[in-house]
């Protein structure tokens, strides 16, 4: 893919090395394996619910691969497991949110450079803008990476975020995964005009649509976007066109709003398969590599499952402990009453 941002010199645009392509595949395999397993965990009663990202591995792994954990900060929705995994977040801590252990997940957001899991659609897009403006104010080089969906793009907060960011030239990459659906509503009845990226021009900022199932294209677009932001040019919109192959969540029944035939046709080619073919074509990997990658993914999933199964409920006192940095007498009284009443029982 050509760079869409003239400001970005070709310097940083060296093609990915074979090793990096293999790493991308390994990441996507790990994510695919964990993702499909998590759906199974739900069926087995290990976790009460999960929002699969089947089909979005290239969009998530490719974008997060361009992220610099030394400087940047990412703001996920509830569907960014592949982003978390690529960033190196503790996956038991991450998946704990789906076990109903703690809303937002149990990983340390500051150390991970990943904001807590966000369940409000478009809830964190403005946070990314504020964080990014903070970088400008303190003269730091960080870039905020804001994830959201095609459905989320309808929320007023996204508009306010893009306008604020553009007015303040805040270093934010607005990264949309347009996966064709917001639960049961297809993009064409959600996104007037058909493209979130096309909205960027209205704010005087660059926007691009990228093939979201091509991990290399996603990586390059995001890398260029980061470079654009880091150079002080303000925000960028990147819209990765992909497809939600699974249900919205384990509680959803896609059969009510789309047929299996539609799914097959609209989903296009599996992003993992595409990368596999590319690796084979350029001779960067062989069957042994793929077998090893899949085996590693299996082992990883097992360890995470073990961790999740071992995860007990949090002590009830934490309900009270984390409300404030400085608790209040009224809340302390409630905690005391709660403790007495739980012991009484």
């Amino acid at each position, binding site marked *: 893919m050509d760079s869409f941002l003239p400001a970005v010199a070709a310097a940083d645009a060296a093609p990915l090395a074979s090793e990096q392509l293999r790493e991308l595949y390994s990441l996507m395999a790990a994510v695919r394996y964990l993702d499909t397993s998590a759906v199974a965990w739900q069926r087995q009663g290990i976790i009460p*619910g999960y929002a699969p990202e089947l089909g979005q591995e290239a969009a998530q792994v490719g974008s997060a691969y361009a992220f610099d954990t030394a400087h940047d900060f990412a703001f996920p929705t509830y569907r960014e497991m592949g982003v978390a995994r690529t960033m190196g977040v503790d996956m038991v801590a991450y998946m704990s949110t789906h076990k109903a252990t703690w809303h937002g997940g149990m990983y340390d957001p500051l150390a991970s450079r990943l904001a807590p899991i966000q369940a409000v659609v478009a809830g964190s897009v403005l946070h990314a803008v504020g964080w990014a403006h903070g970088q400008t104010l303190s003269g730091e080089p960080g870039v905020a990476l804001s994830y959201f969906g095609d459905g989320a793009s309808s929320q007023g907060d996204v508009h306010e975020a893009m306008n604020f960011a553009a007015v303040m030239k805040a270093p934010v990459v607005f990264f949309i995964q347009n996966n064709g659906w917001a*639960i049961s509503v297809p993009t064409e009845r959600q996104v007037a005009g058909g493209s979130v990226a096309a909205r960027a021009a209205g704010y005087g900022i660059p926007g691009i649509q990228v093939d979201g199932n091509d991990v290399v294209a996603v990586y390059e677009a995001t890398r260029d976007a980061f470079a654009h932001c880091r150079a002080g040019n303000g925000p960028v919109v990147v819209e990765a066109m992909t497809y939600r192959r699974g249900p919205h969540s384990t509680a959803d029944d896609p059969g009510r709003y789309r047929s299996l035939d539609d799914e097959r046709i609209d989903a296009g080619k599996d992003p993992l398969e595409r990368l596999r073919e590319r690796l084979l074509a350029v001779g960067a990997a062989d069957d042994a590599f793929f077998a090893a990658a899949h085996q590693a993914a299996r082992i990883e999933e097992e360890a995470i499952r073990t961790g999740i199964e071992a995860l007990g409920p949090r002590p009830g006192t934490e309900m009270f402990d984390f409300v404030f940095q400085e608790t209040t007498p009224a809340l302390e009284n409630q905690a005391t009453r709660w403790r007495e009443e739980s012991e009484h029982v």
Partner: protein
Amino acid sequence: MSESTTATLETATRNEATTKTQSTRLSMQQALNRALDEILSADPRTVVFGEDCGQLGGVFRITDGLQAKHGESRVFDTPLAESGILGMSVGLAMAGFHPIPEVQFDGFAYPAINQIVCQIARMNYRSRGKLPMPITLRVPSFGGIRAPEHHGESLEALFAHVPGLKVVSPSDPHDAYHLLKYAASRPDPVIFMEPKSRYWQKGDVDTSDGGTLTGARIVRPGRHLTLVAWGAMVARCMQVAELAAEDGIDVEVLDLRWLKPIDAQALATSVGKTRRAVVVHEAPLTSGLGAEVAQLITQSCFDTLKAPVERVTGFDVPYPSGDLEDEYIPNIDRILLGIQRVLEYRRG
């Protein structure tokens, strides 16, 4: 027309004999779905919409089949924006429609609060009665289903504080059916809070006779103490009352139903008799609707109250994740302990 609150103390004795002949067993989901179907059939100005309300039939299937039956212009999906949904409702009402929008979950009413508070609740007033807002906003509400964050909230105190809104919450399929039909037939905006944890519980619905639809309802008469509740807490209070009965404590359970206007008369009558009250809700304690209920009781029963009204509620903490849900929502033990505190109260 003024709503009556006096004739509301129908007791739990919905005539079982008559009911048998005219009633059907429905879940609350089915009862609400049927009510919407009938409303759409009866009133051509009604429109039902929200996120995933059309083809999918809503994430809780409350609007299931309605688009197929009534058409895409009467029942439709909107883009994903709650302020949009409610703001659009205002315009539709101005054009003479009777909108029945849905916000998908309680917590997603917050993005629409500006339109609800500053527009829906005030347009009749602002326009000096020329632009009524016959909008029934359905909000799947309260907790108890181990859902993600923001899917277990109780916003009744907020809504009840807003001048210009009426607020109601049914606790069983029968009331769900009739209160929804009633709300949708009124010319003022009603926030209709559906206890989502009760959607799948079945109950007898007498479709031909809803009884009195304004005011509170005594679900279980009793002599020693009044338990005031609404939504999903009503069923829990009934369990509590059965347990208390084993200890010889005769608890009256009052389903408040209307959270605005509150049926002060029903509270006064019940507690005037029992002389003791506990109010139960899922929302946090401070500035919750329990404070209003307690104060209304104290005002009317000050001379005869044997103990201060007790509140058993959620804590002043964000609604927790599934694992801690049962610690947060008033459980049977906590309600029983609240009852005990009231019964054991002795003037110092």
